[in-house]
Every structure is written in structure tokens, then in C-alpha cells.
């Protein structure tokens, strides 16, 4: 190695900064940015289409249960009556379950307040004089069906309903859980749409660069890793500008409509941390997908090839999103763990977790893991790029005439 000590080059980060600054300003003052700002219209349309899946997930995660805290015989009677009526009346009659043994000594209001179990309401007292404890909206909803079940359990005519005493609580475990699922779903959907939008934009940017033939000037001056990093972070910065604009406009509309954040269920980690994690997971999700798209861009010689290659990746990413959504419904399962570990679904799964679970350490671990995945993908993409793009001069179209898949096979093999 050379013994000359003089360093006459930019560091990787300095070089990435040069690229990022140029790309950021170029994109910000381009027409593409206007289209980017209009991007939220797209999620509204797609969101509507994807609503079916979302509601199914929500249904699965918010199975309504009404706990029965009567004596053993009355509880069995109430549960049996509900079961019998359910056969006749279907979902009008909620499933009744005996409350857990450990909660028998706890007041129903406290059970709901402390979010023990998945109860939307709790019935105690007796079938002849039931006491229904729930939030105000749940009381309105379940007073009739519970009266019917209690009347059936009492053996009285269904026309003679027992008087139900009610107790109102501010919240319940089921309520919070259902609303947190909604928060998690909204976060995941936003994350997915933004990352896809940005991944596509960074890919177009690279393809444009290849078209401009500027890439060789960059490759000669700075490491390809810096080019990739610069491009990724420029687009990330552009997205933050976009998010600030959307957030500002959205907040104006929202607060002008008389709403407040209290209308949403607070995520398990709390709003400030949820927002912070949202930003980090968005950045990670985008960097992972963006570096994959850049690697694709490096392999493609033409725009058509880019489309050919990016389509299956887009579809796979959609599947990954659905996988993460599905995993959200199975908290604590192996599937949730798999979704959190697989780098492409990890940001989605972890954001959903932030909404549903208050543990902090898994997020630190996940962020470190995702950062590692980004580093590996950027390095791999840059290596592929150097191997593929800088093969020959303009007559190097020899290479371009080869089939795309033959080139992919070559890239996979030794140089």
C-alpha cells in the first residue's frame, strides 16, 4: 500500500452530502415534487380498496366479549342463555364469557379500567337484577341484548325484562385494544404508501441519472456507496418536507373541523414516542426499500428493464405489507416475531407493536437490526452497480444486448 499520508479525497459522508444536497434541491424545485405532494390522493384511493383487508384484520383483533361476574351458577346460566340466543339471533347477541378466576375479587369497573382481558363490558349482580358496567357507548349498545339474555336466564318471558342497573366507565380493555389496532393500521398504511412512493421516486432518479450519463463522473470521483447513500438520504429529506406539508395541511383541516388528538386511542407507547418511532420506522422502511430499488436500478439497462424488475418487487412488498398487517392481529405469536425480524416487514410490524404494546427495548433492537439491513443493502447495491454499469465504453452495448436474466445470473456468479 502507499505510504503517502496525504488524504486527498472526500470522506464517504462528505461525498454523500454533495450528492444529497444536489438531489434534494433538484427534486424540491422540480415538477416531480408537485406530483409527490399530490401523492396523498393516491393512498386515499388505495386505502379504500385495501379497506376490506383492514376491516377483516380489525374484526379478528377486536372480538367482542362481555364478561360475566355473577356467582358460578348464574354465570353458567347467563353464558348458556347467550349461547342459545346466539344461535337464533346471531351477532346481535354478544358472546358472554365468565371473567377470569383471578378477577373475581376485583370490581367490574376496575377490571375494565385496568384493561384486564378483552372485555367490552361486564355483567354482575344476578340474572333477575343484572348490573352492566361499560363505557357510555357500549352501555347503549349492549343494554338490550344483555336484558334479553338475562330474561332468558331468569326464565321469565322475553317480554318481561329485568331492570338493568348500569355503571359507566371511561374506557375498557376491548375499546382501547380496538382503537389501538386502528391507530396501528393507520400507521402501517401510511408507512407502506410513503415508502412505496419514495422507493419508486428514488429508482426513477437513478434511471434518469444513468440516462444522463452522469453516473460515470460520480463513480470516478467518489465511492459508489456515497452515491447510493446521498441519493437515499436526499429522497428521505424530500419526504420529510412532503410530510411537513401534508401534516400542516392535514392538521389545519383536522383542527378546523373541531377534532383533537384525544379522539384517537393513545398508542401503547404514548403519542410522542409513537410519532418518534413512526418517523424512525418510516426512515428505515424507506431506506431498506429504497436501497433495494437502487440495486434494481443498477442492474437495469433501460427504463423497460426497470419496470420489469421493479414490478415483482412492488408486488412482493405488497405481500410483505399484508404479512405485517396479518401479524399485527397475532400479537406475541411466531408470526409477529417473524414479521419483526424480516427486514422488509420489520418497520411495519414494529410500528404496529408500538401502537399495541408499551415495551421499549424491542424497538431499540429492531432499529439496530434495520440499520444493519440498510447498510448491507446499500453496500450490495453499490457493488452490483459497479460490476454492472462500469463494464465498458459506449460500445459496451454488447453487454446490454445480453438477456436481462443472463446478466442477473452473471452478477450472482463470481466476477
Amino acid at each position, binding site marked *: 500500500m502507499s505510504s503517502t499520508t496525504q488524504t486527498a479525497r472526500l470522506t464517504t459522508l462528505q461525498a454523500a452530502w454533495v450528492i444529497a444536497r444536489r438531489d434534494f434541491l433538484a427534486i424540491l424545485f422540480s415538477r416531480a415534487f408537485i406530483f409527490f405532494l399530490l401523492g396523498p390522493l393516491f393512498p386515499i384511493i388505495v386505502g379504500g380498496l385495501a379497506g376490506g383487508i383492514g376491516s377483516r384484520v380489525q374484526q379478528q383483533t377486536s372480538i367482542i366479549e362481555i364478561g360475566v361476574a355473577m356467582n358460578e351458577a348464574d354465570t353458567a346460566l347467563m353464558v348458556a342463555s347467550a349461547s342459545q340466543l346466539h344461535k337464533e339471533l346471531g351477532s346481535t347477541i354478544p358472546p358472554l364469557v365468565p371473567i377470569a378466576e383471578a378477577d373475581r375479587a376485583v370490581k367490574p369497573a376496575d377490571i375494565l379500567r385496568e384493561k384486564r382481558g378483552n372485555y367490552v363490558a361486564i355483567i354482575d349482580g344476578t340474572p333477575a337484577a343484572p348490573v352492566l358496567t361499560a363505557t357510555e357507548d357500549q352501555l347503549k349498545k349492549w343494554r338490550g341484548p344483555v336484558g334479553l339474555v338475562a330474561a332468558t336466564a331468569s326464565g321469565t318471558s322475553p317480554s318481561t325484562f329485568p331492570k338493568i342497573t348500569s355503571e359507566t366507565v371511561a374506557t375498557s380493555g376491548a375499546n382501547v385494544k380496538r382503537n389501538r389496532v386502528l391507530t396501528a393500521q393507520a400507521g402501517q398504511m401510511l408507512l407502506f404508501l410513503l415508502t412505496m412512493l419514495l422507493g419508486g421516486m428514488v429508482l426513477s432518479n437513478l434511471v434518469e441519472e444513468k440516462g*444522463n450519463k452522469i453516473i460515470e*463522473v*460520480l463513480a*470516478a470521483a467518489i465511492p459508489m456507496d456515497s452515491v447510493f447513500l446521498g441519493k437515499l438520504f436526499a429522497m428521505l429529506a424530500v419526504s420529510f418536507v412532503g410530510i411537513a406539508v401534508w401534516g400542516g395541511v392535514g392538521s389545519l383541516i383536522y383542527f378546523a373541523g373541531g377534532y383533537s388528538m384525544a379522539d384517537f386511542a393513545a398508542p401503547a407507547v404514548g403519542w410522542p414516542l409513537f410519532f418518534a418511532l413512526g418517523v424512525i420506522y418510516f426512515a428505515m422502511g424507506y431506506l431498506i426499500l429504497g436501497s433495494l430499488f437502487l440495486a434494481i436500478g443498477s442492474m437495469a439497462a433501460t427504463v423497460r428493464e426497470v419496470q420489469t424488475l421493479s414490478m415483482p418487487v412492488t408486488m412482493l412488498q405488497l405481500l410483505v405489507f399484508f404479512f405485517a398487517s396479518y401479524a399485527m392481529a397475532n400479537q406475541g405469536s411466531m408470526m409477529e416475531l417473524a414479521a419483526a425480524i424480516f427486514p422488509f416487514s420489520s418497520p411495519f410490524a414494529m410500528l404496529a407493536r408500538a401502537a399495541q404494546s408499551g415495551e421499549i427495548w424491542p424497538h431499540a433492537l429492531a432499529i439496530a437490526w434495520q440499520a444493519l439491513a440498510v447498510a448491507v443493502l446499500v453496500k450490495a447495491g453499490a457493488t452490483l452497480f*459497479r460490476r454492472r454499469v462500469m*463494464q*465498458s465504453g459506449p460500445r459496451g452495448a454488447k453487454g446490454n444486448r445480453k438477456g436481462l436474466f443472463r446478466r442477473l445470473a452473471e452478477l450472482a456468479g463470481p466476477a
Partner: protein
Amino acid sequence: MDMPLSDTLPKDNCVDVDTAEDTNRPLAIEARGLVKKFGDTLAVDGVDISVREGAIYGILGPNGAGKTTTLRMLLGIIDPDAGLRRVFGHDCPHEIAKLIGYLPEERGLYPAMKGVEAIAFMGALRGLPLEEGRKRGAELLENHGMGFAIERQIRQMSKGQAQTVQLLGTLVHRPRLVVLDEPFSGLDAINQGKLERMIRDLADGGTTVIFSTHVIHHAERLCESVAIIAGGKVPYAGSVEAARDRIPAQVRLETRAREGAWLSALPQDARREGDFFYFSLPEAGIESLLKALIDGEAGILSLSIERAGLHDAFVHIAGEAAARALEADNAAEMGR
């Protein structure tokens, strides 16, 4: 500085390297046994090059000979499969990116950028602060009669103007080594002349210039040394003078007498074409032949000695096929 690459490699390389150069100047570029393969194609096969600091060095060969791949390996854009390269004593050219300026064969600029911004950006890639780059860029454009391009977008410029902007961007950070890949390609005669002057000025200022070309007279007019490359190999690397000296000078003789004893004094390769005899300049010189012609009363009407040009040297060294390819490239370029 580490030991020269030439001391680290076996001496059995077949390249014909002329060593009659100014060895007082240190080497800016030293490459030994560079090999690069793309799939089944051996693009560069054991290239050896030595470029002294402050020299104008040409890499001469037809398209597809391996010029661009060689330059890319020298610059660290791609790594060789085998062999060693060293630029200003560094094995990794990226380590000294600030000292190098590079104009690739495929010119490329951001179409939406203004002329001065494009130059400043290229300088920034080589470590020049943006503000300084803008200032120097504006000066360079003014000095090259392109003040109008300072605030004009690249997409609004002609191909030649954009090419000049890119060339100025290559030089804005005042590199010690300038690498130009086919710099004359696409330029009209006037701009080719301007570029030749610019290259000479750079060398006069102590900058090392290495350029590739398939046009022999650019290399012949500008370079003190060349590497002739064909089929990925470098059959000759050394001074232009030494390359020309590979072919003995040609003598053209016209005499009044047609016959005589003096005819036997002519070299064996002498041939008569009309009123003239043509033959190679004897290694011992022309003096003894002149004496024989005078003593034999040949009646010398004219006698001229013509040194071989670089084109003849190229044909002699690289072969007829490579020369034909070179001419075909030139014809294609002219037709463009």
C-alpha cells in the same frame, strides 16, 4: 513512496516499453499487467503503462481496443482482475480523487443545471467548496468565451457547449492529473484546436494529461509518449519519437543516369517507381551511398529523407487490421 511497481512484478511481460524517457520526473501513473474480463470477453490483457508527471500521454487505438476500460481501471472506477496500478503513488485512486480530473467518453450533465452550477458541482465532487466552484466556474466560462452559459441551463446549450462545460468542470478544482477519454470526439475542427491548446496549456502548467483517442494526429501533435493499444494488449508504450524510429526513414532519390555501376551501391530494398528510387535509410547513414553515387556519376537530381509518421509506426506496431479499424473509426466520426 513505495518501490516502483516495475520492481514488484516479474520481468517477463511481453510489452515493448520504450525507456528512453526523462526519468528525472516522478511517475504520475504506473500500471503493470492490468487484466479485465467481462464475461467471456477479455477486454484488457496485461496492459503496462507509465506516465511521467507533467507529460501529455496518449492512449491510441481503435474503438473496442480497451482504452476506456484501461482508463477506468487507472481511475479506480472498476478494479482490475489482475495486475497493479498506482496513481501518484497510491494504489487506490479514489484516495486522491481531489488530484484528478476525469472527462468520460460518454458525456453527461444534469440537463436542468445552469452552466456555472454544473461546473461547481463537479468541483464539489472533488472537494472544492461550492462557492469557490461557482466563482471559478464563472471565470472559466468567461475565459473560454462562454460567459452566456453561466446562467443558462445545460438543456438549452448545444452539444459542443455542454461538452465544454463538462471539460471545464473536469478542470475547476485544478487537478494534477487530467484524464480525458476521447476528448476530441464530437467536436468541430475549431473546438478541437481550442482543446489542443488547452491541453498544451495544462501540461505547461505542470499538469499531467492522459487522453485516449483513435485519431492519430491528435496524439502525434500533442503527446510526448503514447501507448498503442489493440485487442486489449499494449504492443508499444513509450515516446512518440521512439515509435516513429521503429521504422527506418525512407529515402527518395532521383538521378539523371538510368544505368551505371552505382546501382549496385543502392540498398537491397531499393525499388524504382517511375523516375524515383525508394529505399530505407541505411543504418550506417547516407554518406557512403552519396559517395558511390557521385563517384559513379549517377547525376543526383533530388534526394530526400522522410521520417516515418506515427501512423506508419502504428501500422508497423499494431498491424494492418488495427490500422484499418482505426481508419474506419475516423471515417465514422467524420460522417457523424
